[in-house]
């Protein structure tokens, strides 16, 4: 692996021999079991997601605490359901009535529009 890059003195060479001899003797006392070498990802597959438990618990608790305090704008400020067909019709009728007045329509035409509007409004209230 490494190349000897420094000349060893006699003392260092002797020390090296003694150390190599010593570590060779240590071999018999040192061993590992294959069972101890388990990849971290497969050490306990059924426990892999356990670390998420405290986070999930904290998130759930936070939600229960914070959610009721959070103002829900749509619920407190009801918005007319403009997407209903009748509301579009009512709005259109208002525009037609306004246009009829501006264009100097005959009174019976304007009355007819108002009656139609009254009918639609009554229908919306019933529903």
């Amino acid at each position, binding site marked *: *692996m*490494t*190349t*000897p*890059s*420094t000349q*060893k*003195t*006699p*003392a*260092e*060479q*002797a*020390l*090296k021999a*003694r*150390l*190599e*001899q*010593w*570590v060779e003797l*240590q*071999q018999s*006392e*040192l*061993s*590992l079991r*294959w069972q*101890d*070498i*388990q*990849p*971290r*990802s497969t050490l306990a597959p059924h426990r892999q997601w356990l670390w998420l438990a405290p986070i999930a618990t904290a998130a759930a608790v936070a939600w229960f605490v914070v959610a009721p305090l959070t103002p829900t704008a749509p619920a407190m400020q009801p918005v007319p359901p403009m997407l209903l067909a009748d509301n579009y019709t009512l709005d259109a009728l208002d525009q037609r009535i306004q246009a009829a007045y501006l264009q100097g329509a005959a009174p019976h035409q304007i009355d007819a529009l108002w009656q139609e509007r009254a009918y639609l409004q009554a229908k919306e209230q019933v529903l």
Partner: protein
Amino acid sequence: MNTGFGSDISPDTIRAAQEGRRDAQRVIFEVFQRPVLTLLRGLCKEPELARDLAQDVFVQAFAKLNQLREASAFGGWLKQLTLNTAFAYFRRPTNQNNSIEDEPEVETDDWQSQADWLSRVDDIETLLNALSDDERLLVWLFVVEDYSHQELAEYMNISATAVRQRYHRALQKLKDRSSS
């Protein structure tokens, strides 16, 4: 020292291990268990620590094996990983038992010129345990593993001069202990 990191292992076994096959990983473990343990035993005072670090080395090796491009380089790669693991352990603040820089130069001519003092040493392990962790790393890697002072300086992130001073001081300590 030929610690066995150059052991032959087939590229097919390496590739199979890279694919996550446990049987191939086990072959690698059986072949390289001894060199990893030997190197770490030399670096660690306690055999239990050497065993724990070796276990960590193999777990890391199999987790990072996909980073290895050339199967023939496995031995060197594993040795590097073993050293990195040891250095990472001994670099932890809680495991550093003394400073590294600014140490006084020691006179080393007497021990360098003679080896007879070693012949008086009966228990080399006890003598070795007199060294600090850093000193032991330097002595083992320089004397046994033939790393240069410059290489060790890069590993330890200190100057080569500091490595040389520390190494000389460690050997002087060994000699002093051997005669006491």
